């Protein structure tokens, strides 16, 4: 394991593009080599919505794969309180437990990691 810490930022809604799904693939790979955390930012929080039914869009419902992050050693998944509020979401709407931070604290979170991988 590297002593460097990686932060993955997921900032897109699922299914409209492949960024979320391919970003998650990168997170799972990263967790094998380094300490990793994830920030679900802006519309990225929609990737964690429960009970997605993506058959109508011919895309894979990969939200269930977020449930495996803990098994892969990904310590924390962050989301932003204001992102939830603006979308009328609460943490119970999400498939996994998250650490909720204030928008004002995002900059210092980014600063805590050696490398940011942005999707």
């Amino acid at each position, binding site marked *: 394991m*590297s002593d*460097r810490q*990686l932060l993955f930022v997921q900032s897109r809604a699922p299914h409209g593009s*492949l*960024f979320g799904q*391919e970003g998650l*693939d*990168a997170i799972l*790979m*990263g967790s*094998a*080599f*380094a300490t990793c955390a994830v920030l679900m930012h802006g519309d990225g929080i929609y990737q964690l919505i429960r009970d997605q039914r993506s058959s109508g869009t011919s895309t894979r419902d990969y939200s269930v794969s977020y449930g495996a992050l803990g098994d892969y050693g990904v310590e924390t998944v962050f989301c932003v309180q204001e992102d939830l509020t603006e979308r009328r979401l609460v943490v119970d709407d999400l498939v996994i437990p998250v650490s909720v931070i204030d928008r004002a604290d995002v900059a210092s979170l980014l600063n805590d990691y050696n*490398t*940011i*991988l*942005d*999707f």
Partner: protein
Amino acid sequence: MRFAITVHGGPYTNQSSHSALNFAKAVLHEGHDLYRVFFYHDGVFNGSEIMAPPQDEIDLYGEWRQLALDHELDLVVCIASALRRGVINPTEAERYEKSAANLGKPFTISGLGQLIDAALSADRLVTFRV
């Protein structure tokens, strides 16, 4: 300083590939190391040697190829991104029984581990998003 670059955008669709190419040239021009360029998402199309842009437009594949040959760069397309988008080398074409291959040299196909390795090995990983 040691840089690594990752490219998310497809060629000619948006500025991502052009900016990444210009940044790569600037990194090398200033005497820095470029550890790897990793092409992810639609960025894998940068490795298609059959692109045929008009003569008065930049030839992105040709530019990457020449830059890599001049500086011995490691140009890697993500195998998962590339296979699902139809960017393959002769080995993968044979494996998947496809009639053609389009990934040009010196691009290589490899896994996401190469992105993580670049993120951990370089002083700076610079992402060219869409």
